[in-house]
């Protein structure tokens, strides 16, 4: 099959599958959350898989998107689909503010983003700002409540995120990003603008987190700062992406399907056992399979997109 066809097939197939899935399976919230994590894992993939920078505080951008969109609906009475876009823009603005953090090397960047997301959380959840953000009392978006429209929007965003990763994988930009990741000094000497390329990856990654957060807020319609700044959202997205294999299109998809599946079987009733299991999984992965599940396929000589 020509590779253009596989690419388009994958990008169209995923949202199409999700669009029809509610007719066959009635737990729509589970399907929705699967799309949320698919997009978040691809968002982590865009920045970590292609630049080596791992944002531990990725959820900060998700929460910023949720609040940006919600406040736009509540105060400016903007229609929800436009507000979703504004949520993405909110995350873009936040990531621009945080972009000086890209000057830091790996571990510093990871923890600095974690701290930055906590700052955003405490500012939004602060009772002193309740007039603007509703503080810890949460947001009620019932005016815009529309589970079907938000579900389909999420499906489209998931397809969009997949398309961007496919594009990165195929394009000159993706190749130069990987060069920067593997040896930034040599890449710089080969004429690649290291700072600009990293910035682009950060912005795409932030944009998807913002769109996803905004759509999530629209779907659940009543939420609190704790629920959209929950650190386990970052953790899940990172673990899913690493488990499947960062830097590939298929890896994060496999990671979400396998691990989010396991989570829904045992994670909700037995959260401690799930935490134990994924802690052990992360350690085993790093020690024995640092390239993720897709490396098992690659070892068998299969070509993985």
């Amino acid at each position: 099959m020509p590779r253009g066809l596989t690419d388009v097939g994958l990008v169209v197939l995923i949202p199409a599958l999700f669009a029809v899935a509610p007719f066959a399976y009635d737990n729509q919230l589970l399907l929705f959350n699967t799309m949320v994590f698919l997009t978040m894992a691809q968002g982590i993939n865009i920045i970590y898989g292609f630049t080596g920078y791992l944002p531990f505080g990725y959820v900060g951008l998700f929460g910023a998107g949720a609040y940006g969109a919600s406040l736009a609906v509540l105060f400016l009475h903007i229609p929800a689909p436009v507000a979703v876009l504004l949520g993405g823009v909110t995350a873009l603005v936040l990531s621009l503010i945080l972009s000086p953090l890209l000057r830091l090397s790996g571990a510093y960047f990871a923890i600095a983003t974690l701290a930055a997301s906590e700052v955003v959380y405490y500012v939004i959840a602060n009772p002193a700002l309740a007039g603007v953000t509703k503080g810890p009392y949460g947001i009620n978006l019932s005016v815009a409540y529309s589970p079907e429209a938000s579900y389909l929007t999420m499906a489209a965003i998931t397809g969009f995120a997949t398309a961007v990763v496919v594009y990165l994988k195929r394009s000159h930009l993706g190749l130069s990003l990987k060069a920067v990741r593997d040896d930034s000094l040599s890449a710089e000497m080969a004429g690649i603008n290291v700072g600009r390329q990293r910035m682009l990856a950060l912005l795409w990654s932030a944009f998807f987190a913002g769109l996803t957060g905004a759509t999530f807020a629209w779907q659940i319609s009543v939420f609190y700062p704790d629920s959209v700044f929950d650190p386990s959202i970052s953790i899940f997205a990172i673990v899913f992406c690493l488990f499947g294999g960062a830097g590939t299109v298929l890896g994060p998809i496999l990671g979400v399907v396998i691990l989010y599946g396991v989570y829904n079987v045992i994670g909700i009733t037995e959260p401690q056992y799930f935490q134990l299991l994924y802690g052990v999984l992360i350690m085993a992965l790093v020690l024995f399979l640092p390239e993720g599940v897709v490396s098992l396929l690659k070892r068998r000589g299969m070509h993985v997109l």
Partner: protein
Amino acid sequence: MLEFSLLAGILFGLFFGLVGLGLNLIFGVVRVVNLAHGDFMMLGAFGAFWANKLLGWNPLVTVPIQGIAFVVAGVVLYYLLVPRLVVLRDFGMISLVLFFGLSQVIEALAVLAFGNDPRSIFLPVFGKEPVRFLGETFPAAWPVSALVSVVFMAAVYLYLYRTRVGATTRAVMASREEAAASGINVDLVSALAFGLGLLLASVAGMLSLFMLGSVAPDFGSGITVTAFAVAILGGLGDPVGTVLGGLLYGIALMMMQSYLPSWANVLPYVLLVATLLARPGGILGKEVRHA
């Protein structure tokens, strides 16, 4: 109120210095960000709690006994995990993820073993009367905790600067390769530093029962960020600077709690981001930025 905030800030600052010290020692020697630092603190706190509850031991008696256990655990963990990772290209990032996994495992096991309840020790085990000095009154546990912190900081200083193994440890901190080339057993020195780092975490965890009120199994992740903020403030990889970082942090925290209480929670995070952006090497530190 200003005098009280300053004095309390110094007492808490010494404690926070100890909180950051173990993390920073491990980073300085092994170049690993121990994201499970807070979880080892939690284990130290639970050890002291159960020894007090079941055996009636004073937490100060528990410290040397469980300290040995933490050193042994640290040496074993080091040899199990680190040598096979050091050779990898992306060592910094991979070790971060690995220790994150470890913190999840410890937290999950702690919840399974102890339940989700926060634990605290009845405050008066460190003396019933509040302590007065310089015209201000403090709970007895505060100066006792500060004193314990100072003793352990001094011990680390003596270890690093007055013993032979300490001299080799500083050589490894300066350059792993050159230390190995001059015949130093880098793995042994690093393993000892790792064990010492966990011992410091366990002591800081025990003191957290008094300084921070109570400790629950999920206590780890938040305090790890605080420890990291303290270490960054003083300079990552510079154990002596950590004492200064702790003092700055403690005083800033107490000032915030007195004058801007609703914003006090944000402080460690703001300090962390601001220091990293303005002076990534810490207040005293050298440049650490990379391309």
